[in-house]
């Protein structure tokens, strides 16, 4: 209750900032701006007000409406406001000396908040707008814009709208930019649909940490009446959300790689895994292979970024090759030592022998005909290890290290001939993306792990279901799952209302609700015989959440550099347990 009070008073305050600046009252602005903690952004709301004051609203509203119907709505909104900030500032600062100072303060706070988690999520989700905003704020602080890509540089230049432009100029120039840079034709045949969307609200209820928010999104984001959620189940919304979902799926496919399963199988998996608390979400498995290059500039940029990250990951590894080599041997030895006291026959996949039902799928989908087991009477482990790496944006600062550590783990397990799968998980636009780097059979090169990159949110509970699905094919009798986590499940898709549970309204997938959900999934996995453990690397206070989720089966590391050691320790513990 207190929360919704806060939200509405923050909204009211934001409105007042806008009205003060506009010098006019009672109109409902199309946009409002909020900081990541939910408080109104003083400078940007003032700018929204000055835009209202200086420019013909009817003309600008046409522009807003066109954008509202566009596929790249969020990006266009972001770009438009980079332009509007520029011209409104130019006009207003002439009669308001303090404005330059307000602007600088806004720029400074932008950089001060750069390292926060939600900021990173935003950065990952709309990196183009982010890059240009960053460039704008850099120039405001008198630094070079810092853009390297010539396409971005030019776009940034063109968004420097001047104080002499009027509403008509702004509209024309903006549409021209969208046309030239994004092949956007500007005619929106889908206006009625977008209106409808406006009325029914957006399922993305957790306000993204976008500085400018369309007011209607926020309104729905802050109301906790179940209206929007039930509306989604209504028939009316189906066609729209189906189209939107198809777009989202394509986006995911283009950014992360082709799906592991064909459409029908994928739909089936969705149907079995994305139920109850994850209803309306999707799970997407990929091994990172890409299809034909996409033409969408945003996707191209994402891919460029991913590639750059891969280079960075590799460079980090090469620079410290010796250290990592040592880690690999050390970890392998540690596991081997533990194994010496764990004699078990190893089932080795073979092209003939005893049929292993759990591997049949590989013949069907992966063209791998080693679906039989050859039994060696060797002292070998009968367990497999799954390593699931958090790849949400909270990991942006440590991608290189995680990749290198993942490589160390994969290599040592391979040396020990322990079947291991390594994958990362993140969630974006309602899709929990499971990126498979190496499978149990060791067919894939461990180097794949250098493809690791972070973005978006983490819906831990659904990812655990995904892991459980991937583990069904384990060749071993014992399955170990180790998760790199910050014990802070967060997703922008909410948990739908659950009437059987007496919950008539949905909840954000975060905080207690996220922890509860993840804990429930961990319990389920354990019931199914999976040994679930976690390596915790997160903020202070995460230990409590980790305890709720994993019980005692986690180990905390301060530095991500200790990941492989921690994994070694956990595996060793499990080996000892299995022996008993």
């Amino acid at each position, binding site marked *: 209750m207190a929360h919704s009070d806060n939200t509405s*008073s923050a909204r009211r*305050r934001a409105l*007042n*900032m806008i*009205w*003060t*600046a506009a*010098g006019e*009252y*009672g109109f409902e602005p199309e946009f409002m701006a909020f900081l990541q903690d939910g408080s109104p952004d*003083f400078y940007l709301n*003032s700018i929204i007000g000055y835009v209202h004051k200086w420019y013909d609203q009817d003309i600008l509203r046409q522009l807003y409406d066109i954008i509202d119907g566009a596929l790249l709505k969020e990006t266009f909104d972001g770009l438009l406001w980079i332009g509007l900030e520029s011209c409104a500032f130019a006009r207003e600062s002439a*009669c*308001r*000396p*303090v404005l330059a*100072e*307000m602007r600088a303060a806004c720029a400074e706070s932008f950089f001060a908040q750069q390292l926060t988690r939600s900021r990173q999520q935003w950065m990952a989700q709309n990196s183009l707008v982010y890059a240009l905003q960053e460039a704008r704020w850099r120039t405001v602080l008198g630094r070079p814009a810092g853009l390297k890509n010539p396409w971005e540089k030019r776009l940034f230049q063109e968004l420097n709208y001047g104080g002499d432009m009027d509403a008509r100029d702004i509209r024309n120039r903006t549409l021209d930019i969208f046309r030239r840079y994004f092949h956007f034709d500007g005619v929106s045949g889908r206006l009625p649909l977008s209106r409808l969307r406006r009325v029914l609200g957006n399922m993305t209820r957790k306000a993204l940490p976008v500085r400018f928010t369309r007011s209607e999104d926020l309104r729905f984001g802050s109301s906790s009446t179940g209206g929007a959620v039930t509306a989604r189940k209504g028939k009316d919304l189906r066609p729209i959300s189906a189209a939107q979902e198809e777009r989202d799926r394509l986006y995911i496919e283009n950014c992360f790689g082709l799906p592991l399963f064909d459409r029908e199988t994928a739909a089936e998996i969705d149907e079995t895994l994305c139920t109850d608390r994850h209803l309306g979400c999707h799970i997407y498995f990929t091994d990172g292979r890409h299809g034909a290059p996409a033409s969408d500039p945003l996707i191209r940029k994402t891919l460029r970024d991913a590639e750059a990250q891969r280079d960075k990951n590799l460079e980090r590894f090469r620079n410290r090759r010796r250290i990592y080599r040592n880690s690999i041997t050390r970890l392998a030895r540690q596991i081997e030592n533990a194994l010496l006291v764990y004699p078990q026959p190893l089932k080795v996949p073979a092209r003939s022998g005893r049929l292993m039902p759990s591997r049949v799928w590989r013949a069907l989908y992966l063209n791998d005909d080693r679906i039989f087991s050859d039994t060696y009477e060797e002292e070998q482990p009968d367990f497999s290890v799954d390593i699931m790496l958090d790849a949400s944006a909270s990991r942006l600062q440590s991608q290189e290290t995680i990749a290198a550590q993942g490589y160390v783990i994969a290599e040592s397990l391979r040396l020990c001939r322990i079947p291991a799968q390594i994958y990362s998980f993140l969630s974006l636009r309602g899709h929990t993306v499971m990126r498979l780097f190496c499978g149990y059979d060791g067919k894939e090169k461990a180097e794949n792990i250098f493809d690791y990159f972070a973005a978006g949110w983490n819906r831990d509970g659904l990812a655990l279901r995904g892991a459980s699905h991937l583990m069904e094919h384990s060749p071993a009798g014992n399955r170990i799952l180790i998760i790199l986590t910050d014990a802070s499940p967060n997703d922008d898709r909410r948990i739908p209302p659950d009437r059987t549970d007496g919950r008539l309204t949905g909840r954000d997938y975060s905080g207690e609700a996220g922890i509860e959900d993840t804990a429930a999934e961990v319990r389920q996995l354990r019931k199914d015989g999976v040994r679930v453990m976690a390596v915790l690397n997160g903020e202070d206070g995460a230990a409590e959440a980790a305890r709720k989720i994993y019980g005692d089966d986690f180990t905390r590391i301060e530095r991500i550099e200790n990941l492989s050691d921690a994994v070694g320790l956990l595996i060793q513990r499990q080996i000892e347990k299995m022996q008993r």
Partner: protein
Amino acid sequence: MLDFLKDEQIDPELLKGIEDFRRQFPPEEASSSGAHPRYVYYGREVWEQALSALLCGENLLLAGSKATGKNVLAENLAALFGRPSYNVSFHINMDASFMIGADTFRDRQVVFRPGPVYESAARGGFCILDEINMARNEALAVLHSVLDFRRVINVPGYDSIQVHGAARFIATMNYGYAGTRELNEALASRFMVIHMPEITEENLVKLLRREFPAMKKEYTQQFAGLFTDIGKKCKSGELTARVLDLRGLLDSIRLMRRGLSPLLALDMGITNKTFDTYEQSLVRDIIASRISKKADRHSVFDL
């Protein structure tokens, strides 16, 4: 004073009327004729309304919220017409004897000591009945015959006197905050009423220039804008009128001149007039959009 009104482009007919009045009722003391009031009232329309009414011999009721210049205007009018002014502050325990006068001992004798209403009626002064709506109706009844066409004062036990031809009664009345009340109809009908508007931004700039000649021009503009911003917010119902306080703004600026940081000064003079934290945050947002956090006395004034 007359020159000021000329600058303010007041109807010359009215100015001529004032001159005629002063010829008809020459100011008693030389000093009061050239009186330079501490403040001047800005607002052409109100000036013209007030002058016309007074020249026609009417009494004036200036109604408006606090700090709209009611007293300033009343004092200005007295000075302009060259009449002595008498001030009566009304309150709940006010009674007739306080206005008219009461018996008192002087030199071991019972004598009548005239009150301000009696004095101005006798000497042709301008009597300012400040916050007239604060008194009880019974107490006000004695004013009826003074204010209407009879223009007489009945002093019980003494002769009644006729009100001097130059005497005028200017009442003020606050509304807009708790504790104020409507003036009863009988009394209201004996006045010409002016609803005092909030000062315009343009006039506020003039006022600030006159009050604070050392203030930098851009700041004059920002302070005036600040007051307008708050005014609009009150009008639209986003803020209560407590924080719309020109007196508070002027006092704050005086503190700034003494060296207090502008933001702290404005907190004391304006923001803290409300005790609601949400309202305070709205006011601070307005201030922040006008006045730099880093501003100090030297950025505001050329000292």
